[in-house]
């Protein structure tokens, strides 16, 4: 099995939202909906402050509760990877996956009546390209690669830098990592 991961360096992220716009263009995401978004978190009191920007999306979990909770099998792992996709022709729009996702990453009801979400741009991976968000990021703060290759850039970054994931306590085994 191939374990894809995204690594985002919050110390370089400026919260510009380019990832959001690039995703919308690349994937024809309808107006009003997003597959990724940016969070700003400020801690401390003036003038001793810390601000973190995070580009967030589906975590393509190793143990994806959206997949296990989908009644029709529409939510599934792509090929032999951790990339979670929704087969629109099998999706009834029941929203069980939305309830099961700890990250609110599936909030999209596509106008055509199925649940839509980040695909890690699997159509680009097949062409050897990074996801659209990663390839456009003007600060170069986003990285994409294979976790089970110890020599991949993402593996090396995670070995050498302090990092975190969001809500690891859910046991979902998220695959979007944040360098802090």
């Amino acid at each position, binding site marked *: 099995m191939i374990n894809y991961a995204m690594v985002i360096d919050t110390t370089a992220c400026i919260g*510009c939202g380019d990832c959001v716009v690039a995703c919308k263009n690349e994937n024809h995401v309808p107006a009003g909906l997003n597959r990724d978004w940016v969070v700003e978190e400020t801690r401390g009191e003036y003038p001793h402050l810390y*601000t973190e920007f995070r580009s967030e999306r589906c975590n393509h979990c190793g143990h994806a509760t959206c997949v296990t909770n989908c009644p029709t099998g529409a939510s599934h792992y792509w090929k032999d990877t951790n990339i979670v996709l929704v087969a*629109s*022709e099998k999706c009834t729009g029941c929203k069980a996956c939305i309830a099961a996702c700890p990250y609110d990453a599936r909030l999209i009801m596509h106008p055509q009546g199925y649940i839509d979400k980040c695909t890690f741009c699997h*159509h680009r991976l097949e062409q050897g390209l990074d996801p659209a968000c990663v390839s*456009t990021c003007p600060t170069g703060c986003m990285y994409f690669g294979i976790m089970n290759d110890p020599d991949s850039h993402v593996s090396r970054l995670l070995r050498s830098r302090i990092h975190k994931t969001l809500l690891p306590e859910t046991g979902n085994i998220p695959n979007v990592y944040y360098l802090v």
Partner: protein
Amino acid sequence: MQRREFLKFSALLGAAGALPGLLGGCSAPPLPGSGEVSTRRTVCNICFWQCAATLYTENGKPWKVVGNPEDPHCNGRLCTRGTGGIASYSDPDRLKQPLIRVTRNGKQTFRPASWEEAFDTIAGKMQALAEQHGNDRIALFSHGDGGKHFQRLLQAYGSHAYARPSFAQCRGPRETAFGLTFGEGVGSPDRTDMANSRCIVLIGSHIGENLHNSQVQTLMQALDQGATLITVDPRFSVPASKSRHWLPIKPGTDIALLLAWMNILINEQLYDREYVDQYCHGFEELARHVQPYTPEWAYLETGLEPALIRETARAMARSAPATLIHPGRHVTWYGDDTQRCRAIAILNALLGSWGQPGGFYQQEKVDLPPYPAPKPPEPKHDWMAAVQGDYPLVTTGISNALIDHSVGPEAFFKGWFIYATNLTTTIPGIRRQLKQAVESLELIVVVDTMPAEITGYADVVLPECTYLERYDDLRNKAERTPTLALRSPAFPPRHNSKPAWWISRELAGRLDLGNYFPWQDYRDVLDWQLQQVGSSLEEMERIGVKAFPRKTPLYFESGKPVKFNTPSNRIELYSQHLARTGYDPLPKYTPPERPPEGYFHLNYGRAAAHTFGRTINNPLLFELMPENTIWVHPASAAKLGVGNGEYVRLKNPEGTHSHRIRVRVTQRIRPDSVFMVHGFGHTDPRQRLAHGAGADDAGLMHNVKIDPVMGGTGMRASFVTLVREEA
């Protein structure tokens, strides 16, 4: 079968109200890019960084726009606005056909017209105006690539007056100050060598919110390599959040800090003595001048601890000459802006960073000959002497001065061409003059892609097509690597819009000036120029960007003398030009005015999602940031009784109210200041998304400070308070 029926039905329910989706409801949508994909090379026009890019269409429809990896402006990565630029093509609110102002039943309105009629109307008025007042009485305001064509047109006609708001409303003080000090300006792209800097100091500059692409990229590169970032800003800006030191300075006191830094560098012998001896003029005068400005003195002005001032000065010296005191970009703040920028230039000189790796590099552009065409005749009068003679050091148009000289029957200017700039919100405090000017001017022509407030003043509105539908001149900037980049159209012009080169040529024909525009198709001009430098239009349409080898050194060469374009031929710490023209030859500090009780310093700036007001109506970018907010410190918000997310109106001491704007209560700002993103609060209902969204800062500026050296409009001396909206 039953089960499939059920699924289909469910999908239909989910798609209530989205009729076009019904048919395809249960089949998997095709993967992006699986249709017929084609590409075209372009240069982004959403801001003025001009990144080269590739536009992708799928099945003939716009798909995406992506940075060209060969382009040093973007290195293959467009910014937020550039990525969203594709939506400017499909914006339903674009200007669609020429419009002519008419009076109907006593009420003025625009009526759609043909290009022929629009041209005849303009040409008729221009000829009458030339006969009555002379042919040098039309001024051009331009902020965009196509402006050159109208500049050529008006020069051929006889009017040379030309102003770009990017001077007197933006970079002018910096260009003037660096010119006085080093004999050259900073230019655009800025000649900052940040990728190699070991220490970077930002003074009120918020790179990262201000997304000039390779500036952002090289700043991040420097930080990745461990450079020290020092940010001086009343607000905890994005770069402040990446900084080793954030100096939350009292607004308007930057010169005090800069003088104190000079004081430390000189008195602690931390400056680059060898560099100063070799290149600089006036060190003794400077050393004497800065003696009173100790960190303890500066503390009282700036509110910054003396220890912090010393520590940061020493950090700068440790990394010198790879220390960049960033010159900023929008620097028209308090009216003493040229002097502040001079202080920045002097500080860089003391650190020896001008002409050195990690400081400022030397720029070079491609030697690209102009297409052979007759040269417009020399002007009959010196229009600069007539309208901006008070500013002898300025060699370019001062937009606010041109406007002042357009008011009243005796005014110098009788007509305006306005290309791609919404003067009403670009230039602060001119709404009254603008209304008066509109009464006295005999002709106002606006050329733009979108309707905006300024088009409301026009006699004739000419719709230009967007950058995705036209050729423009080759991008050829003085920069690190000389490069050419081509903007070629991905689509034919929508509606009845046209490119600037065509509009100007056609209008020239109506004025019997067609010989100045000897091209049928602008492709011929571009191809001829490219052939002269060993390329061709065919090649550029294929590759988009072409780099040329440098002929001059990137940095000063050690041991070799440098001749600076100043009176002393040296870097002028003490400016002889300023002394001779009666200004302070060394920067002086003037304490800024403080807000009246209950009021706050009004600070404004950029956001990553927008370029001033011009992108607010872009559907993709509007979605990302549909309104601005007013940042308020929690203590101030509590005093005012306003809560986070609540709508308020801003009021200045003259009683002017803004549109409503949401409060953002945040620790990220000084309690004596508020902050808002510029560009919102559009009042033109023809921009259906932008209309009424957020508030406009420019309309609140009651205290515009004119820079005595270069005539710029200082925009940070105004005050506002927050007024709660009655529920």
